[in-house]
């Protein structure tokens, strides 16, 4: 299923952004990554090719529990076949496979958003 992701704007984009980091933190808690600081782990994920990022996000979506609001915020950036953004009204059409695919698609888009306290140009200075 090809997932169309809408532009990440509006209040729900912040909820989705936080949900993405909940997923990443959940993965970081796996024994294989536990030794790393979250910043280091996330910097490594950011530098990965998109396909590897997708694998990690998919892994996270499989076992990290998100709240209803967080799932709704993420899936709300996707559209159903009629072009209607998913809300509580039409989310009942979705199975776990669809939900995981949408979480992955939206989170890959979110991973491209850079929100840093110190910008790259400031770091160079």
């Amino acid at each position, binding site marked *: 299923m090809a997932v169309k992701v809408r532009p990440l704007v509006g209040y729900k984009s912040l909820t989705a952004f936080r949900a993405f980091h909940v997923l990443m933190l959940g993965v970081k808690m796996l024994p294989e990554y536990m030794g790393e600081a979250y910043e280091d782990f996330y910097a490594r994920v950011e530098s990965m090719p998109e396909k590897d990022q997708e694998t990690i996000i998919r892994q996270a979506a499989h076992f990290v529990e998100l709240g209803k609001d967080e799932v709704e915020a993420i899936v709300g950036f996707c559209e159903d076949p009629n072009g209607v953004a998913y809300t*509580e009204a039409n989310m009942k*059409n979705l199975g776990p496979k669809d939900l995981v695919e949408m979480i992955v698609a939206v989170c890959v888009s979110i991973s491209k958003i850079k929100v840093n306290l110190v910008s790259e140009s400031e770091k160079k200075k």
Partner: protein
Amino acid sequence: MASFKIYDCDFGIKYNGQNYEFTHVNSLTIEDPENTRLIRGSNAGNKLGLPYKEGIKDAKKINVTILGMSVDLKAILDQAFENKDRLDVYAISRADGSSKIGKNAVICQQPQQLSLDESADSMNVALAFETFDLSEVHKS
């Protein structure tokens, strides 16, 4: 014309294979024009009369108000109204689970936004559907 009201139900629309369901809909009205009536001659001597049907060429009408409908869905329903597209509608009573299902319905009036909702993303919309295929399932 008979008019039924269902209070506190879940109301759903199936359009192009997608279900859109709204929970805790305050009320829904169904107007059924079909009547079976009796007639007799003007001497009034016949105690049985002749039964006949009236209103059978008019469709049954479903009126409902949806709170918090997304702007996207309103646009799709506007389009369905313009194109005279077919859709299925259903209402399930939250009290006893009995349901009414209207198949191959059309939206008979332009979906009307009732007032500006508090959210910019959603609105309150009055919908009216017509169907000839209305069935009901009662739970005992």
